[in-house]
């Protein structure tokens, strides 16, 4: 609790912590919003993919000793491949089915993944401590933990990379065209099936990468998927489903909101507030706070 007024160092520290946390949260949700925008697909297994990415980094750390913060490129590539194959083998089969079948499909994947992880790795929380873990930079009265800063930095680098990919490469532009009008894109010679596969690959890849970043700054546990799915949906819905700039704002908002609640209130109401706000936004502003969702 703060000793001085409300606007003291504690307050600014809470905001800073929130922004750093928010950077990671953006990485969690960008793939969800992206896949929805391009394919109208709701990946409710998003949080479980984050969990799997975190554990992949954890096991690399446990066996080879590489700091989780530096293994995200590998996780990104592996999860991209998994996403690509999942689209080609499973999701493609339900694309023509009633719209909610893909929701139910991912629901099954989520249940299988989270319970498979619990069976394999038990119910315990794990934490990685490396040489970088304890270090921090100071900025006046504020402290910036190095790991959190790196995680924030890599998350934004990934988003910048995604932006450049979508705007500057032929494949990226094909995906944007597919998102705008699937049939028109097909007529223009875009391989829509391939665009879908790459989209889901990016969705899975960014989720796995977010897991790596989380593994380096927070404790991880096989049951964490549900919470990160909640975060991902909260951010995506708040920003507008399928509207990527909204995701940036949503992620930072969630990070700051959570940091403030934890600093000034008890942690037990965090989930109540998040779920309630998520519900209310869906009912009253289903297109997000900017009204630009789909």
């Amino acid at each position, binding site marked *: 609790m703060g000793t001085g007024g409300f606007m003291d160092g504690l307050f600014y520290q809470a905001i800073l912590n929130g922004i750093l946390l928010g950077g990671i949260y953006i990485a969690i949700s960008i793939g969800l919003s992206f896949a929805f925008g391009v394919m109208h697909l709701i990946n409710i297994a998003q949080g479980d993919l984050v969990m799997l990415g975190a554990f992949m980094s954890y096991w690399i750390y446990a066996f080879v000793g590489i700091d989780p913060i530096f293994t995200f490129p590998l996780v990104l590539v592996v999860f991209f491949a998994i996403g690509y194959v999942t689209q080609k083998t499973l999701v493609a089969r339900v694309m023509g089915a009633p719209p909610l079948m893909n*929701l139910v499909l991912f629901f099954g994947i989520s249940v299988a993944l989270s319970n498979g992880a619990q069976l394999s790795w038990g119910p315990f929380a794990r934490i990685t401590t490396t040489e970088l873990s304890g270090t921090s930079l100071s900025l006046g009265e504020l402290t910036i933990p190095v790991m959190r800063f790196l995680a924030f930095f890599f998350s934004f680098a990934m988003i910048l990379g995604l932006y450049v990919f979508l705007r500057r490469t032929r494949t990226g532009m094909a995906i944007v065209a597919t998102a705008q009008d699937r049939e028109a894109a097909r007529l223009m010679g875009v391989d829509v099936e391939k665009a879908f596969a790459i989209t889901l690959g990016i969705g899975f890849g960014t989720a796995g990468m977010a897991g790596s970043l989380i593994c380096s700054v927070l404790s991880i546990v096989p049951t964490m998927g549900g919470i990160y799915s909640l975060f991902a949906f909260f951010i995506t819905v708040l920003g507008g489903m399928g509207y990527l700039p909204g995701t940036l704002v949503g992620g930072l908002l969630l990070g700051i909101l959570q940091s403030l609640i934890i600093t000034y209130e008890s942690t037990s109401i965090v989930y*109540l507030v998040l779920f309630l706000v998520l519900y209310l936004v869906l009912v009253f502003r289903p297109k997000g706070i900017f009204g630009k969702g789909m």
Partner: protein
Amino acid sequence: MRGKEDSTAKRLLSISFVLVAALTLVFLAAPFLGLPAYWMRFLTGIFMWVGLAGSWNVIGGYSGRVDFGHVVFFGAGMYIATISILEYGIPWWISLFLGGVGAVALAFLVGLPTLRLAGAYFAIATWALAEAIKQLSLVLKVTGGTYGLVPPPILGREGSYYLMFLAMLAMTISNYLIERSKFGYGLKALMESEVAAETLGVNTLRSKLLAFMVSALFPGIIGGVYALWIGYVYPYDAFSGLKTDQMVVMVFLGGVRSFLGPVIGAVFLQVVFEFLWTYFGSEVIYLILLGVLIVISVIFIPGGILGLTRQRLPRARFFGLEKFSERFRRSAE
């Protein structure tokens, strides 16, 4: 030709009617004939899940709205019945009734704003609301917070058995009737195209709301029975997302949009669960299988087990039940 078909259908109808009546008698008489406690518990569980899965079929199947928070009505029934007895001393059977009414009222209040949302948004919204209500029950005083409440286990083994059986029977008959009613056809039209249904004179919001309320009634009652059966009510059990998950899997696995589907799915999964529990002593393997089964059923057998029997197996083996439902399926189309 037509007359002959009708008489065949009548014969099949009477065969399955006799079959259902015989099964009912067997289940009603079983406790008197010394059914062991283990099997009583096992069957009570099956009855409960057939009822719950059947209720999900109303909103998720007939009206095509994927409800990821259906457990809310079950939990509401548990808490309402328990609080009615503990706080107000209301007789148990009125308390159970209140649980059902409370769940329906909740469905009305929640449904009015939520059912306006498009499919995927509805799914996320119901999930978020169910989780919010769980979190709320963790901090409220009236629900006993994390410690929960301890209702007297008034019903006992036999009482729970019979009440769950009745709930299951009523839910399944209700689904059978919905499939053949004007209301059911309205829902079907609405699921295929909301705009088209609206132009043809189906009041879409009212139909959806009614379906949602019908689907909430039995979970509310069953929740109360469950509370008075096990004698312990706490948020992580009452509002467990896993309960919703199981309802969804049972419906899709058995065969969505058919009154028999949830029955088959629930019986199948409960038997599998019991088997895995006995041999491995852990729930986790069952849950992994749950996830894998839903993926398989969505990709390979979209019609569920029921759809599979229609395609692959000789018809006569199903005591006419299969032909019977096939006929109604055709007449519904």
